[in-house]
């Protein structure tokens, strides 16, 4: 048994919240730079350049990349040989979020309920997912998710006999409806399989995989490439003002499901797709 004090988790969550909000992910930045080089439309090119300049400024001046510093999603992979000591895990995670949002002058966007909407003033609670895995480490990943793009996400329960083309059509439709509101160029996380709620979780988790890194399953990798091409030929472009760059990447995660179903979820994320991770 390896013992880890939850205060270490609190500190790590705080550190990762700050990092994610101030430093745009390397993979996202790299894909933006590739896009600038390819983009012919002058306005699209300028917008992409502004996005890259913004990332540089945010990093050096420690200002949030985007004012929507999001609802914080925390994925914890806890090794089954780890014993957590020193208090409640959820409390520690939320304390880390609250500390970072206070110290980093980040926007507190969380309200107490869907209908009774009082700002909690701490940006907590975070959405916390815990996975028990082999081993004796704790892997923590933190992503602040903005809601301009979150609001454009969608889920659909397909029939098991529906084709990959029908799924593609659905995804393309989600992108069209998101249009300029989701701050394109977007990153799409797609979850397929599982159950109604599991595929939405997979869609969110898919956003953690570096942009440009393909799925290891060949048929899924092919689907990702085809979707990227099809979406980038729509001409929506940066901020919806035209151009080749509508998505920076499409990441699909697939899991087992039931003979009667084919759940598909699309989690829309913006050019400010942020996350940071650390293993204790």
């Amino acid at each position: 048994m390896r013992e880890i004090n939850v205060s270490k988790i609190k500190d790590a969550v705080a550190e990762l919240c700050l990092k994610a909000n101030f430093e745009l992910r390397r993979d996202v930045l790299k894909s933006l730079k590739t896009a600038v080089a390819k983009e012919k439309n002058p306005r699209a090119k300028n917008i992409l350049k502004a996005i890259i300049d913004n990332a540089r400024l945010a990093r050096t001046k420690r200002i949030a990349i985007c004012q929507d510093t999001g609802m914080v999603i925390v994925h914890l992979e806890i090794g089954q040989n780890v014993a957590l000591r020193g208090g409640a895990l959820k409390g520690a995670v939320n304390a880390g979020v609250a500390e970072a949002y206070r110290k980093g002058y980040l926007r507190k966007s969380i309200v107490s309920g869907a209908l009774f909407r009082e700002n909690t003033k701490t940006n907590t609670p975070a959405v916390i997912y815990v996975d028990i895995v082999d081993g004796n480490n704790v892997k923590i990943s933190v992503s602040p998710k903005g809601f301009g793009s979150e609001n454009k996400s969608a889920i659909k329960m397909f029939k098991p006999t529906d084709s990959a083309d029908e799924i593609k059509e659905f995804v393309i439709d989600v992108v069209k409806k998101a249009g300029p509101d989701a701050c394109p160029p977007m990153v799409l996380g797609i979850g397929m399989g599982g159950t109604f709620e599991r595929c939405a979780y997979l869609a969110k988790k898919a956003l953690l995989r570096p942009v440009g890194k393909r799925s290891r399953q060949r048929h899924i990798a092919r689907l990702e490439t085809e979707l990227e091409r099809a979406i980038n030929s729509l001409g929506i472009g940066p901020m919806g003002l035209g151009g080749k760059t509508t998505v920076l990447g499409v990441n699909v995660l697939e899991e087992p499901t039931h003979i009667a179903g084919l759940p598909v979820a699309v989690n829309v994320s913006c050019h400010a797709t942020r996350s940071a991770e650390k293993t204790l």
Partner: protein
Amino acid sequence: MKPVKIKTPLTKQAVAFLRAGDEVLLSGTIFTARDIAHKRLHDMIAKGHPIPLKLTDAVIYYAGPAPARPGRAIGSCGPTTSSRMDSFTPELLRLGLGGMIGKGGRSPEVRAAIKKYRRIYFIAIGGIGALLAERVISAKPVLFSDLGPEAIYKMEVVDFPIIVGIDSKGNDIYDQARRKKK
């Protein structure tokens, strides 16, 4: 094309020559307001209460900024999705609102109201709040402070970079982008 420099107040004359797609650098006073602030203003208007904000020729920026670090005017400060405010906008335009800044398209009703009252809608680039904050020289909450980031802030901006989204004739930049594609 070089951006056009304009200053607040945004009178009808000041925006009449601008066309959808034009790049603009705006200087002067703007007010932030988003969802709940709009709802509160709407409720005051519906009840016939005087609204505690001078709307005539004013500019509303759909934004909920991040707090300022010591020594800075404001934190990250980009636009939020405008369409969530669509149902409130025609009423504010009728009361003399000069213009709005946000991101994304607007409803046909908002477009019609902009044309009718000869006003303007600008878009700012979403997600570049750090860069935009550099153009804000002062900011303070002036109304609904209890709402935190959703309070109405009065901001002074210098050369704030925006693009005309819908001009006073009702031309819409997103229509143009769509047409070009075809």
